[in-house]
Each structure stands twice: as structure tokens, then as C-alpha cells.
């Protein structure tokens, strides 16, 4: 009676195909970008809102002054890209959580991705094609010093 076969393994481990490491990298990216963003954003906020006249100082001339330095151009560009990707990735996770119907989910994902691309492209163009002294503008609005320096006034 005890000649029975010993416990075999009739059930093989399931063969499951995962979606690569997308979720994992998404998760890691949220953390890495978060840490960098904290530096970028807080410096940005500090300079814009805490120094000088705070929010009141912000106008075309202020922007022009900042972007005259490549550092700030790259700063804002990095911030733009990281924040958009981080935010879109975060929104993607939220959509995955709540949108039950595949159609709704897909639509929202597309909307997110498109807006991300549009915003990044737009922002990048703005930063790098920015003209601090557009002709035909009331000089009062311009950063006069800067434009003089640049020989545009």
C-alpha cells in the first residue's frame, strides 16, 4: 500500500508574461525625479516669490532677465521636462487605479500623453526661442538694461 509515488509536481508554475519592467521603472522614476524636482522647484519658487518684490516682480522683463543666463534656461527646461513626466506618470497611475473601462482608460491615457508632449514641446520652444527684446514693443515693458547690453535698444 505504501508503494505510492511520492509527491510529484503535477502543476507547473504558471507561465505569466509581465509587461516588462514598466511599472518598476515608473516607480523608480517617480522617486528619482521627485528628489531632483524638490531642488529645482524650491529654488524656482524662492527666487520668483521670495526675493525682491515677490510675485509682483514677475513680468516680461523679469523673465527676460532670468533667461538671459543659460543656467536658468536649462534650469527651467529640466524642471519642465521632469515635472511633466513625473506629473504625467503620476496621473497615469491614478487613471489606472480609477478608470475601470478599458475605453475610458485608453482615452485618458492618450489625453495625458498628448498633453505631456504638447506642453513639453511648447515649453521647450518658448525657452529656447525666447526673444527678450521683440521689436515694436513698448520699451517700458522690456528689460531695458538687458536689451541695451544686447544692443537691441
Amino acid at each position, binding site marked *: 500500500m505504501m508503494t505510492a509515488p*511520492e509527491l510529484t509536481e503535477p502543476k507547473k*508554475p*504558471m507561465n*505569466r508574461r*509581465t*509587461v516588462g*519592467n*514598466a*511599472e*518598476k521603472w*515608473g*516607480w*523608480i522614476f517617480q522617486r528619482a525625479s521627485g528628489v531632483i524636482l524638490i531642488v529645482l522647484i524650491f529654488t524656482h519658487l524662492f527666487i520668483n516669490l521670495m526675493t525682491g518684490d515677490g510675485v509682483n516682480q514677475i513680468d516680461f522683463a523679469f523673465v527676460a532677465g532670468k533667461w538671459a543666463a543659460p543656467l536658468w534656461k536649462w534650469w527651467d527646461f529640466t524642471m519642465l521636462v521632469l515635472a511633466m513626466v513625473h506629473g504625467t506618470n503620476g496621473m497615469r497611475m491614478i487613471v*489606472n*487605479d*480609477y*478608470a*475601470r473601462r478599458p475605453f475610458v482608460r485608453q482615452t485618458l491615457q492618450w489625453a495625458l500623453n498628448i498633453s505631456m508632449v504638447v506642453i513639453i514641446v511648447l515649453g521647450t520652444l518658448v525657452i529656447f526661442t525666447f526673444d527678450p527684446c521683440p521689436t515694436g514693443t513698448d520699451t517700458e515693458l522690456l528689460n531695458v538694461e538687458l536689451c541695451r547690453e544686447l544692443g537691441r535698444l
Partner: protein
Amino acid sequence: MTATAEKTDSTSEVGAVPTFTVTLRILRHDPEGLDGREAGAEYWEEFTVEAFATDRVLDALHTIKWEQDGSLAFRRSCAHGVCGSDAMRINAKNRLACKTLLKDLNPSRPITVEPIKGLPVEKDLIVDMEPFFASYREIMPFLMTTGPTPERERLQSPEERARFDDTTKCIMCAACTTACPVFWTDGQYFGPQAIVGAHRFIFDSRDEGEWDRLEVLNDKAGVWKCRTAFNCTEACPRGIEVTKAISEVKKALTSGEV
């Protein structure tokens, strides 16, 4: 973890046990529509019972069922927190009815009792556990080894054994999974219990299937869905550090080491 009864004079408790009156507000679900209700109707019902100082919520439910309304449906078996039958939402938190003493709940106010959240309710406090067990099965919760079976036991040092001790305590009560806000959202998430179940094998030095399991947990419905809300850890009646187990799985996946 269930609060431990505050230190009372234990001797007087066991001797002459004082009684008090409590009201339970129970969220009922009538799947069949009896007594003129619609099928699937949900409604709150209040019951008042006499209870002893040593009574647990389960005792109060029994008193209701046995003396007032026999149709009240709930699951229970062991009555001392080891079988995992009676997880329910008591005063808006997941707990085991048999491990929650009435006197720890401020019995002067009505105690609310609801089914656990996120699994389909079948009747009163009974939910369909099948999706929960299905997630558990997904993670291949059994020892996987290769090579010939040894004559005697596989050796394992006490330290290696200690690594996964915490997660072996799980009684599959689902208190954690149904407390998780991410699980409530769409039910796609495997839930913390499945990760606990996987953790128990992933960190068992005898097991060789850790990467099969980690791959499953790397999935969309897997471990990355956890947003460290800690409801699971706080709900676990066995005191398992659920979120810690989840974190360890995440670490294994990111570092590639178990």
C-alpha cells in the same frame, strides 16, 4: 493589531463579570429581498444587547443571532483569532470580531459593523472571498525547488528561518487587502495579502522560485500599486508588518537580489 485590554483587575473580571448594554448598528444586505425589500437591498439595523466585560464583538453578534434575529449572517469559526473567518469593519476599521473586545470600543456609543470593503457582498457581513483567494493563487504560494529531494530535511539556519517568520503568521483573513485604499479603487491590485503570501516564500532560503514570484509581483497589478498607505499593517490582526514585507519585495525587485 487589536488593542490589548488595558490592565484591569483580572481577578475580579473572571469572577463576578459585570454586564453592560451595547448597541450595534449593522449594515445589512439582503440578497433575496425578503420582507418586502428589494433584492440586494442594503440597510442599517440597530440591535441592543447585554454584554459581559469579557465579551467580544463576535459574542454580541452571536447574542443577536441567537436571541433576536436568526437571519443575521456572518462567518466565524475558531472564536480566538486564528482561523481568519470573521474580518469585518467595526467602527469603520477592519478587525476580527472575535478579537475585538466590546469594552475597548467605547460601548456607550453604537458600534457600527459592516462587511469588509472591496469584495462583493453576498449577505449581511458575508462577502465573496473568491477574488481574494484567486490573487493568492496567482503568486504560486508553494515551495518550489529543483534538484533531487533530499533524504532528510532541507537544512535552514535559525537566522534564515527568522527572515520570513513574520509573514508565515498570515491567516488569510483579508483584513489587510480590504483595508487598502488602492484595492478599493478597481480591485485590479493583488492586494497586500498576496504579497505577504509571496514574501513568505521569496525569503525562504529553501525556495528556488523566488524570481517566478517576483515576476508576477512586478506586474501591473503587483507590488508597484502599493502607495504605502499602511492601512494593511494597521488592520492586520496577527501584527504582521505588511508594509515592511511589501517594501522588502520592492527592494528585491529594484536591487535584483533576494
